Every structure is written in C-alpha cells, then in structure tokens.
C-alpha cells in the first residue's frame, strides 16, 4: 500500500474514533473498551512493525507491555516521578531490555526467534512473582493494587470519567501511529523491507542487518513499554494475570484480522477484535471457541486480513499493487 493511502486511511480511522465519545461518552463501559482498543491498537501495530515489516518473529510483545506497565508503576511510586514522565522512563527501560533480547535473536532464524522472545514472556511471570520481583516492588503474586493515576498540570485522570483519558490515549495512539508511519515511510522501513526480501543483497548494498534489527527491537519495545505504562496508570492495578495466554491470543487475532504487514490494518483489527470479543462475551465458554474458529477461518479465507481484502479489491482495477 502506498504511503498516501496509509495516511488517508489513518486520518479516516482516527477521525472516526475521535468522534465516538459523542455517542458513547456517557457509557463508561464502552469508553473503557475504546481506551483498551486504543492501547491494543498501538501494541498490535508495534508487533506488526517487527513481525510484518521487519520479518522478525518476535513473540515478546505482551512481555514488553507488562514490563513497561510494572516499570512505570514502580518508578512513579518509588522515585515519586510523575506518571507522565514515568511512562517514558518505562519505555526506555523496556527498550533497553528489548535490545538485550534482540541481540541473541540476530543470529537466530524464524522459529528460534519466536521461542527466545516467547521465553522472555514465560520467564517474566515467575520473575515478577518471585523474590527478584518482590525486591523490585512488584508486590509479588498479589500484584500492585495502588498505582498513581495519570495527572498532567494538576488534572488527574480517573477511571470514573474516562473521556479525558480517552482523548489522551487517542493523542498517544495518533502520535505512535504517525511514528510508525514515518518509520515505515523512511529509510528505516525501506531497510526492514529490503532485509526481509533479500538479506544478502541488502547487506551487500550497505544495509546493516545488525543495526536495523536492533533498532526495530528498541523502537517497538519502547512504544509497547510506554503503552504498558499508560495502561498501568489508567487501570490503577496490575497483576501477572496479563501474561496469561488470553491477551497473547487476542493480539494475534488482531493481526490476523488486520493483516500482517498491512499497517494500519492492526489498528482496524484492534477495534474489530475487541468489539467482537465483547459482543461474544455473553456466550461464556463459547466465546474463545468462536474466536479460535474465526482465526482458523480467517487465515484460510482472508490471509491478508481486512486491509489485504481491500487491496485485492483495489488492485483488480489498478494493476501493480504488490503486497
């Protein structure tokens, strides 16, 4: 998809999302879901950036998110840093961990990278719950029950009136999507694609696989960690339950629906997935069954997600749109 079309699509999505509070502003439940949609849309976009564009099978996205959330909560509590700064510090910490995780991954291939990054996810829970975590102030298995709410210029965002926080998150999500767009559009994105298509030729043209792969780890884990921070200060509570398989699968479904490597598909995917998940909620145990069935069917029927479907419809008229 060319950049003009992505920009247009982004503008369209965010405009629609921006007016949603006019309809749902009074219903906390829906506003809350919308805020979660915004958060997941950024996290999923980051995942898409690293997996879809850079072609690195990183499965550590949820782990980075949780790290960022804990880091921000702990920093703001222990060093009394205002949350609005703490989230960036948390992003920085997560980025540093992202680079550390990225280093061994440079040498590895597809499924191994998936394993190493997923290993980070698996280790995180015992670490956060165990002695190390408790020493850092994670509250062990009880989790953190009091996290300072976000406040800017004396205004405190509370969950009781979510509309202001919705707009704050919208601003953050717009900024993140612009960052991702700029990255895709800039030489970074070109480097990712070139490395993904033909690493040999790309490196022989001077593209440093090392540098750009580490950068994508750093960037995506920074943004993801930062979103974790925003999440923590919004919800006000944290536990290692986030590391359950549910969230991981939800993010995967977002990508399946949105389309891998089809930015801004992940954003659309996030809104659809979270909405469908809520709609299916009354079905109780049939909800995950339906979600699972949907993934299976969608991968077969709509392998490039919704954006891929649009593209296919477009490219029939307009030749030459490769994936």
């Amino acid at each position, binding site marked *: 998809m060319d950049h003009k079309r992505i920009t247009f699509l982004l503008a369209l999505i965010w405009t629609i999302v921006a007016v949603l509070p006019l309809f749902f502003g009074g219903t906390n439940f829906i506003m809350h879901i919308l805020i979660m949609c915004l958060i997941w849309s950024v996290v999923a976009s980051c995942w898409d950036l690293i997996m879809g564009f850079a072609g690195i099978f990183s499965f550590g996205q949820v782990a980075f998110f949780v790290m960022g959330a804990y880091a921000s909560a702990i920093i703001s509590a222990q060093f009394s840093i205002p949350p609005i700064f703490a989230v960036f510090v948390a992003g920085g910490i997560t980025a540093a961990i992202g680079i550390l995780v990225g280093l061994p991954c440079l040498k590895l291939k597809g499924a191994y990278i998936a394993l190493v990054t997923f290993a980070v996810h698996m280790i995180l829970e015992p670490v956060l719950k165990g002695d190390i975590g408790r020493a850092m102030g994670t509250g062990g298995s009880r*989790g953190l*029950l009091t996290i300072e709410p976000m406040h800017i210029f004396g205004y405190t965002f509370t*969950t009781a009136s979510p509309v202001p926080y919705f707009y704050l998150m919208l601003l953050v999500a717009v900024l993140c999507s612009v960052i991702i767009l700029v990255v895709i559009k800039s030489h970074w994105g070109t480097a990712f694609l070139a490395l993904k298509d033909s690493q040999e030729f790309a490196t022989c043209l001077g593209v440093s696989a090392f540098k750009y792969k580490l950068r994508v780890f750093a960037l995506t884990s920074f943004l993801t960690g930062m979103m974790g921070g925003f999440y923590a200060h919004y*919800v006000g*509570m944290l*536990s290692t339950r986030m590391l359950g398989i549910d969230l991981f699968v939800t993010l995967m479904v977002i990508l399946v629906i949105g389309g891998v490597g089809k930015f801004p598909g992940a954003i659309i995917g996030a809104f659809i997935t979270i909405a469908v998940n809520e709609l299916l909620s009354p079905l109780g145990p049939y*909800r995950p069954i339906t979600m699972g069935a949907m993934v299976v069917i969608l991968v077969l029927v709509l392998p490039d997600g919704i954006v891929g479907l649009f593209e296919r419809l477009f490219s029939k008229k307009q030749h030459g749109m490769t994936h």
Partner: protein
Amino acid sequence: MKKALGILLILVLALMPATGLWAKDTIKVGVPLAMTGPYTDTGDNYWKGIKMAIDEINTAGGLLGKQLEPIRFDTQEFAPERVMQGADYLCGQIGVDSVHAGWAGWGQDVRAYGKYTAPFFADDGSQSAVDVFKQNKEEYKNIFQLTDTGINQAQSMFNVLMALPYEYPNKKAVIITADDAWGTEVGDTLEKNFKEKGWDVAMHELVPYGTNQWGPLLTKIRRIKPAIIHVEIVSAQEVITFFRQFMKRPTNSILSYGYSLVPREVVETMGKEADGLLGEVPTAMPTPEAPTPEAQAWLEKFETIWGHLPQAGSWAAYSGVKAWATAVEAVGDEKNHDAVSDYIATNGYKGETGWWKWDEDHVMRAGGDVPIAHYQVQDGVMVAIFTDPPTKPYKDYQFQVPRWIKQ
C-alpha cells in the same frame, strides 16, 4: 470442518442479538464470574449458589413483586482491566442493583465496584482487599466480603492443627503453597504461627500452578520427616498428584490441605483414597450433617438441585443474594443502593445457621453462627471435625489418625 465452523459462527452471530433483549420490570443482578479459563470451576460453584437463591426468590413471587434477572459477565482470569470492564458493564452499562461475585481479584474488585453504588458481594478471602477497603470506607461502603481473610483462615487452620487429639512426633513443619496471593498469604501466616510455637519450618516452598511432578520436593520431605505438611494450592490437579506421589512412600506426617481440599474433584476423584486429609472452608455449611434443621434442609435442597453436596463458596454466594434481598425488602426500594448497603452493614442477615454480621471493614469474620469449618476426609466424604473460632470439635465427629502414619 470449515463448513461446521462456518455454521457455528453463523449460529453465534444469530444468537447475539437475542442475548441483548431483556424482559421489562425485573431487578437485574450482576454476576461477574469466571466462565472461561482456569477459574471456571470455582466460578461454577458460586453460580450454583447464586442461581439457587435467585430461583428461590423468583418462585416465591420475586423481590418487591419483581422477578430477579441475573446478568452474567465472564471475568476470565481477573486481569485488572477485565475486572474493571465487568464493573463498568454491569453497574455502568446495565445498571444492576446488586453484584454477586466470587473470587474476584484480591482488591481490584473493591476498586472497580467501589466506584458504583450497587451492593457488591465478593469472596476474596484476602487481606489486600480489606486493605483497599480501609483506604476509603465511605466510597467502598457497598462492598461486602463473604469470607474472612486468608490471614485469619490460616490462623484458624493453625489453631485446629494444634488442637487435634494427636501427639506430633516432632516439631517440624513443611509448607507448600501456590505462588499466588492466596497461597502466600496463608503460607506466611502459618510460618509465623509455627515459629511462634517453637516449631521448625524446615521447608517453605512456593510452586507455580501446573506443578505436578513432586519428585524433587518429596525427596526433601522424606529426608525432613516433618510432623505436618501443609499444602495450599487451590487446584485439584496439583494437590491430587502431590498426594498420590506422597503416598508412594509416605512419612509420618499430618497432611493439611487448607482451602485446597475443597475443589470438588479432590474428594470426587480420590474417594476413600483421600481418607485422612485435612482441610477447611470459611463461611461454611458443615457437612455431612448441618448444624441446624434449616441448614440441613438447605443442604438437602442443594443436593436435589445440583446432584452433589455444596462446594466452597456455594453457600456463601447464596447467602449474599439472600442478605441483599432481605435488605431490599426492608428498605422497600432496590434502587436505593446506599440504604440497602447501610441496612446490610448494620443489621446483617439471619441465615440457615444463624446470624451473619459484617464487621466495620464489611468482612464476614469467621465465628459465631458462621464459623470456619475444618474437615477431614473420612470414608470418602468430607466430614466437619472442628469449627473455629472458637476452636471446638463439631458434633460427635472425631479426628482419625491417617492410615499412613505408623506409630
């Protein structure tokens, strides 16, 4: 396969709007419980009690002449934002007049539902939930805990262990708990108590859920030969595998399972094999024989409806609904949430075993007519042998020295 899935999907989509239709003029009751994921079974226990209470009220003509209508919400794994979503959905979106939860998230729930006014009944059994409550008693006045905290429950377990008519061969204890909030709360309290009484806690192990290879730990236990082993993992798989592997070469130890004796599978799977195990249930309806005729009637009714004896939480959740209904009758307006909450807090509720009184932290403290019951599995059935506090033997039931202890 594809076709079948497609049909399923269509069915689901077709069913969706149907769930959104509610009959008019009912009182809506929120029921946020785990319907999927690892806590499904505990969610089920609570639901059975809640459903029984609601059906009872409805068949008796409803509350203030209106039928009760439960609105369920799947809390999944109690991720913080999920708990919040539940509160926003049930209280914010639907506008229910009371919420009956079970295990709902160790304090996250207090926050989430405290924002609203509808009376909220939870079975957290957690000191951290009480701590959150104490931060703002006015704001959280609609929150009611149906059971005592883990600290007090653990204290009670210790009291009973010390009161058993049995002479311990040594003063060595082993504590194994799950690495969750409940497990650590119980484990830490027990360790403190043991140490105060001059016992040696030779091993205090946290284990992750899903542990079912106990070889390495049992190896250590066999060396220690403790007088008491306390296991606190509220998941049948773990405690059964532990027991079976322990029984291959048992030590002369009393096996205390605390709250982890109560998942229905434990006794149902093992039957008489489980004889000798100790455990406890807070806010309990002692079995097999209830303390009062009303309670006995309730027990029998539960068994007729669901086909088995009540599990931990069923009766507590049932009583929560009844307590709220009593208060609503007294206040005369289900929408006056504050008045209903105040009524419950000051007047309590008279249940099958006697009076329920919430303390100033809105916790149903163990004792009086609603004590913690301590059980031993005897002949394949959970038999209440003690109640606490105060620690006293229950009816004529006797503690039996487990068969694996060689004296």
